[in-house]
């Protein structure tokens, strides 16, 4: 499409608009990112290494990996099942179901933690019963997992539903009519079709699961070495004025964010997955 002078701006206006946008992005997005890494290495690589190798930091890293390793697969199973039901069948209430799946997006992270405290906390609805049976959920790992699963609940389903809707169900119907059973159809027909979209959803889900702060902060109890995830550990170090330590751990999370962004961009360019509607 040739751009005539009447449907685009002059060179100067273009340059001015681009410059304005870049200055805005540099101040609001690029500079904070640069600040994280600069502050982390401010006192040299030695101080950075010491902060990252500290036993409490290691415990936080291990816990964060554990939480993601539990909550991401749970959301993958749910996301695939929900998308299959919603896109391969027509039934009343489909749209209501999608709305319900999206609910966690519109709830404040703090409130997402609060609801589990109200359910399972010492003064919560099930608190007395849990105490009687010596089950700890709040201020323990199960509570952190629950809050993380809640926060990341829509991520995989949200990616898969539009993708599977677009792909329709002809391939699956063909497979079934050729004698494949349901599992064979899913593994050999559906999964190869949706794998990149699924990976995209997993990436975003994982980034949020590892980085969640508000919800996890409410249910964790901040017990060092036990219920401190990486973002919570950053907060503790920061509040103790250990800025190098805080930024060192934060830089690991920022690196994770960068890897996520790069992988996400590669998926978008290679497999044309970019659908602008997927904003979270």
């Amino acid at each position, binding site marked *: 499409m040739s751009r*005539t002078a*009447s*449907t*685009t701006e002059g060179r100067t*206006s273009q340059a001015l*608009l*681009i410059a304005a*946008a870049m200055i805005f992005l540099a101040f*609001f*997005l690029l500079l*904070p990112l640069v*600040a*994280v890494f600069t502050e982390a290495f401010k006192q040299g690589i030695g101080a950075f290494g010491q902060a990252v190798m500290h036993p409490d930091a290691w415990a936080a890293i291990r816990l964060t990996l554990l939480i993601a390793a539990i909550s991401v697969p749970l959301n993958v199973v749910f996301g695939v*099942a*929900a998308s299959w*039901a919603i896109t391969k069948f*027509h*039934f009343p209430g489909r749209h209501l179901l999608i709305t*319900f799946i999206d609910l*966690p997006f519109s*709830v*404040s*992270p703090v*409130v997402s933690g*609060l*609801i589990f405290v*109200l*359910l399972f906390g010492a*003064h919560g609805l099930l608190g007395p019963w849990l105490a009687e049976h010596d089950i700890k959920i709040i201020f323990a790992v199960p509570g952190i997992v629950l809050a993380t699963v*809640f926060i990341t*609940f829509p991520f995989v389903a949200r990616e898969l539903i539009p993708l599977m809707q677009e792909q329709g*169900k002809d391939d699956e119907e063909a497979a*079934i009519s050729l004698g494949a*059973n*349901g599992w064979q*159809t*899913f593994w050999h027909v559906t999964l190869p079709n949706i794998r990149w979209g699924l990976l995209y959803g997993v990436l975003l889900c994982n980034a949020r699961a*590892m*980085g969640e*702060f508000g919800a996890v*902060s*409410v249910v964790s109890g901040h017990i060092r070495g036990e219920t401190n995830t990486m*973002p*919570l550990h*950053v*907060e503790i170090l*920061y509040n103790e004025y250990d800025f190098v330590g805080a*930024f060192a751990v*934060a830089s690991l*999370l*920022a690196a*994770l964010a960068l890897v996520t*962004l*790069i992988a*996400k*961009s590669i998926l978008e360019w290679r497999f044309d997955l970019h659908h*602008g*509607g*997927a*904003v979270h």
Partner: protein
Amino acid sequence: MSSLATPFSVRKTSWRQPSVLPGFGLTFGFSLVWLTLIVLIPLATIFLKSAGMGWHGFVEVGFSHRAIAAYRLSFGTAAAAALINAVFGLLVAWVLVRYRFPGKRFVSALVDLPFALPTAVAGIALTALYAPRGWIGQYLEPLGVTVAFTPLGIIIALVFIGLPFVVRSVEPVLADLGRDVEEAAATLGANRIQTFSQVIFPAIAPALVTGFALAFARGVGEYGSVIFISGNMPGKTEIAPLLIVTQLEQYAYDGATAIATVMMVFSFVILFGLNAWQAAQRRRLGA
């Protein structure tokens, strides 16, 4: 006659359209149970607990002076940040869709940074920049501008958090906009500014409103990126989500629940209103 030949029992039990694909019962049943356990029941507890407080008790803690100051601050700063994002988000989306320049892919990927960067990391990074002796703060301080530990700092954090919502809402609509309408406007003698304000802007306005509403809703509930830069002074720089946490730490569960309920009702109203408005727009455009 074929429709009459359908066995009555099949028609009676299939509330969904028949399909040759298997797995509906399994996937639908599992999804519904999991959704109910993880999302619906926990969310319902908050309303249940609110209802148990009685109207008077609810208002007393949910609309105390301190709570009202917190709502004002949260809603006010979120609205201001969403407005800034509407302007600059539109600019960024415009530049990304319409112009070619070096590093465009990098910039496009960078726009999603707030989605990928943990909020606590964003919070301490912004504080490092805007604290009185920070990278940027040290130059603002002599000018009499204090960013950190004031509502201005909260707005900056919420601009960071909300930007991708506006850019990613506007971008696809702007990309799909046909050049023909702009050419027609030019043929009819409109200059670029007239074409933008009277042809392009009305077409992207619904997407811009969507982006604004999403950024606003997210900003009202935001916690991690704000608490480091806000200073957290009750009545002055204490946002509503932080007040919930403070109440919880003092074992004031009623207060925390009431404030959470007010916030949740508010965000559901925004999203419901947005959905209704979008549906009305689609009907109006006959799409």
